[in-house]
């Protein structure tokens, strides 16, 4: 902050030169996404089909739902590592409740309530006590993940077929959960861009102390972001269980990093105040398509991990350079 170069923009108008670094982050990652699709269309047989597109979207929807919550928290200036524990916990809870005869909707509701509780716990520690979000959510990641294993007794549990509405049943060729996911994407986008609550999230992420002094309810808004994130993660866990018709303490535990990676690929800054839903969508799709294309090409999944990591690092480096160009231009 202190080394920031101050400039008087109006004084010296210059013709803006075109450089790659002046494009919005989403435009660059979007271009890269198109490029990746083009490459796989040529190299991977059966990549460019409606069936495969459905597979990609269907697989990505769980990550997308979780990433929406992550996005809210990251914009507000924190992050949520507990998603990877919340998802298996919700999945396991959903499967045991439905197995023991609960109706699907009640089981879903129960999982969402657990999400609210975890969100309140995060709010208490991070927003009120100002404990570091990294440490707090790392701890709750461990706790929620652990409870998931305890509930499932380390086993893989089955989900009764009639409880798999979200994952199993389709409208046309699209599963229900894809429609729900698209709906959530639209709602969160409107929330962030066109609601007062959303603009407040950006403001507290940009500078929470300045927002507080201006009279913004920083605790309410920051807390809401954490609650929403945990609820989205719980919902993602239910969708995952009804997709697989099974649940275990390990299912979906890698989504913490995937959601974070997707959000950052889409232009969000871990320092807060930046990020968007369209960006996050592009980020999720990019990671999903790379995985899908490489699977078709029969590349072992370990290599996919390596490639995802490199893509993420490249994107973050790029946005860093972009930031610097903005400051000095």
């Amino acid at each position: 902050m202190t080394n920031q170069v101050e400039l008087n923009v109006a004084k010296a108008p210059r013709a803006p030169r075109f450089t790659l670094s002046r494009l919005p982050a989403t435009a660059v990652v979007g271009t890269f996404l198109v490029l990746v699709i083009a490459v796989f269309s040529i190299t991977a047989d059966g990549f460019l089909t409606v069936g495969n597109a459905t597979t990609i979207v269907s697989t990505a929807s769980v990550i997308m739902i979780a990433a929406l919550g992550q996005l809210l928290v990251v914009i507000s200036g924190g992050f949520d590592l507990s998603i990877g524990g919340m998802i298996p916990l919700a999945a396991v809870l959903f499967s045991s409740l439905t197995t023991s005869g609960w109706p699907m909707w009640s089981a879903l509701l129960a999982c969402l309530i657990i999400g609210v509780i975890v969100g309140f716990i995060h709010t208490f520690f991070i927003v009120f006590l100002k404990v570091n979000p990294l440490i707090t959510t790392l701890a709750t990641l461990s706790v929620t993940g652990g409870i998931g294993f305890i509930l499932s007794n380390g086993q893989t549990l089955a989900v009764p077929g009639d409880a798999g509405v979200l994952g199993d049943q389709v409208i046309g060729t699209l599963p229900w959960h894809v429609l729900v996911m698209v709906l959530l994407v639209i709602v969160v986008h409107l929330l962030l861009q066109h609601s007062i609550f959303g603009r407040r999230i950006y403001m507290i992420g940009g500078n929470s102390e300045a927002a507080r002094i201006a009279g913004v309810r920083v605790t309410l808004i920051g807390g809401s972001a954490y609650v929403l994130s945990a609820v989205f993660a719980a919902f993602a866990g239910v969708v995952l269980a009804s997709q697989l018709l099974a649940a275990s303490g390990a299912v979906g535990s890698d989504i913490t990093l995937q959601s974070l990676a997707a959000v950052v690929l889409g232009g969000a800054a871990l320092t807060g105040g930046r990020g968007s839903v369209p960006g996050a969508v592009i980020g999720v799709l990019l990671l999903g398509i790379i995985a899908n294309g490489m699977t078709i090409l029969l590349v072992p999944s370990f290599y996919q991990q390596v490639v995802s990591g490199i893509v993420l690092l490249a994107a973050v480096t790029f946005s860093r350079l972009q930031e610097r160009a903005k400051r000095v231009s």
Partner: protein
Amino acid sequence: MTFDTSPDRLISLRGIGKRYGSVDVLREIDIDLDAGECLGLVGENGAGKSTLLGIVSGKTPPTWGTILMGGEERAFRSPREARAAGIEIIPQELAYIPHLSVAENLLLANWPRGRTWVSQRALNREGDIALERLGLSIDVRRRMTELSLAERQLVEIAKALLGNARLLILDEPTASLHARESEFLMGKLHQLKANGVCLIYVSHHLDETFEVSDRIAVLRNGALEDLSMTASTTLDRTVSLMLGSDQAYGTGTLRPEPQRLGQPIELRGWNTPTQPVLVNCDLDLHPGEVLGLFGLVGSGAESVARGLGGHQSDIAGSVSGPTGVSGVPRSPRAARAMQVAYVPAERKSDGLALNQTVAENLTVMVLNRFSGFASWLKRRGQLALSKSTVESSAVRCQSVLQEVGQLSGGNQQKVLLASRLLAEPAILVLHEPTRGVDIGSRNQIHAQLTDYARAGGAVLLVTSDVQEAIDATDRLLVMRDGRVVDELSGIRKTKNLALSTAAGSAA
């Protein structure tokens, strides 16, 4: 000036000068210093004090002149060389390592030679010895963060003396100390003098400078204006010499008498129970006028600003405002409910979200006005208001969607002020509103304050910039030791009187 060499002569400055570019920031400085004496160095901001200190302590090479020590010419090429010659400087911003112990901090610069491994016990023993030389009883095992600010200052002094300092330069040593802590430090400085250490004492607190120094040097515009025995000069004379005769008694622009509009806002019995920052501070704010509150750092003026803004919650007292009588607001939201808007001193950390747009920052306090169905944001209204505000406040930006961090400091400050004015507060509190702001923006901000007051607002301008305190206010209150000590208006509102009252002269 005599050029004889007394046996106690420690250091002589001969014709020291410094030129930056084509500007002479320092000219023809001749000063002799003896062991065991204390020189008070005073001057306004920009008078050349820092440059002179930099030259003596080896940080800045002089353009002209020489430094003599023990009859030899010395040219320090680095602070390290100056330190080796026994010159130590204690900067205003202390440079210690907060989470290490006192002993570790003391010995950092003078780590026992030739030892890679040092036992904690040996460290503590040497630390104890270092503190004993100053007559301090601080447990060397405590961490620096556990000490009071005065104690940290003293540890830094002890650290400097460990290197066998013969000349100790103190730059604003009491800036962040309370009165009682300052007194303690003063006592220790007298003790150092008695031990033969030579001191250069730089401070805006002239009363302290008078108490501790044997001679006082006044710098103005880079020249040594005066060098006299402390006993034979007065505080008022010193202030006049600092400011220069041309502007000492001028009041800047003569402002027309403001019309007071409606009930005054009364602050009564403001106290900080745990520390003596505010001591029964009372003041009245009148709608229609710009009230200035001037005080040196530590006078409590900043606590009044923060307290009214709901940004400092350890203050007891009452406010009778437009919303009735109540206590000191406990939070920014409570302040807002009392129709107070607060412009904090730290623009970047407390005022603006730098990576958000001009529009978002401008409308942060009034966003709810654009709330439609289901709290849908009426974006068009938000942007229209932002655009008209940017125009009326003459903020220079490419568009209201530009990030505010890309604007110049002056324009950022205009955005911050405009965001508060949009809330149409009954009481507008500003804390150092033009710090680091260019002169054009500064004048414009001052004009905006006057306009707002004339339209019926009560404006409280808290500043430590004496020029601003004179130029931008209708009435000026001077604070010292936690309370208002004088009210200056009309022909009594001069820089001279403001400075000498704030610094504690009997006048």
